[in-house]
């Protein structure tokens, strides 16, 4: 059936979640850590360890996730932009301004603006007489 994922595609998709992709924002870091904590807790449930140890791991993982959620909630309330501030945001902020101090424009806007010759600065062209 078109569009349906094969079993192998599903496997690679799950594996790609754990692949080492670059974390570029604090929020993506939190998601990554939360995922690892959840996987760690799930693995601990099936590990050949004692029941109290399993419970301890689950409590620790749950507490860490709770702390992360609380941390993100605080930032989300006071400074939400900090959560998604990364390299792209930094570059966008430091992007060079074009135009003049009167009005800055994006390079796209300047390129779309119709240009013309300078009509106001130069005096009318003088008639140049050839030397005889």
């Amino acid at each position, binding site marked *: 059936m078109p569009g349906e994922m094969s079993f192998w595609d599903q496997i690679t998709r799950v594996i790609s979640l754990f692949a080492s992709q670059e974390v570029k924002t604090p929020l993506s870091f939190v998601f990554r850590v939360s995922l690892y904590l959840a996987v760690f807790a799930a693995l601990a449930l099936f590990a050949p360890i004692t029941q109290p140890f399993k419970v301890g791991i689950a409590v620790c993982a749950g507490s860490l996730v709770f702390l992360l959620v609380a941390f993100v909630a605080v930032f989300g309330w006071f400074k939400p932009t900090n959560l998604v501030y990364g390299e792209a945001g930094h570059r966008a902020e*430091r992007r*060079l*301004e*074009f*135009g*003049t*101090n*009167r*009005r800055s424009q994006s390079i796209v806007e*300047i390129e779309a*603006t*119709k*240009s*013309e*010759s*300078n*009509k*106001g*600065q*130069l005096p009318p062209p003088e008639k140049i007489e050839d030397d005889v």
Partner: protein
Amino acid sequence: MSVLLVSYALRNNTKDYSPLYDAIKNHTGLWFHYFENIWIIESTLTADAFAKSLYPFIETTDHLLVIRLQKEYQGWLPKEAWEWLNNRQY
């Protein structure tokens, strides 16, 4: 006052040249930037003095050129750009 054209070739891809751009823009606050590597500013400094003031922000492998402009120019630019240039003290 004089009007200076500042042009550069910045070759270090890993260096943050923001201090250079800020130094040019904030020198007198009167700036014109319609080309990628060219700025025009109004300044009380000579071309020599202004160029030397920018040396701390570039590297020895970069290029920098500062030229004092005269009131004779022509080209193909948006109207706002011409208005800015025509209102400067050359």
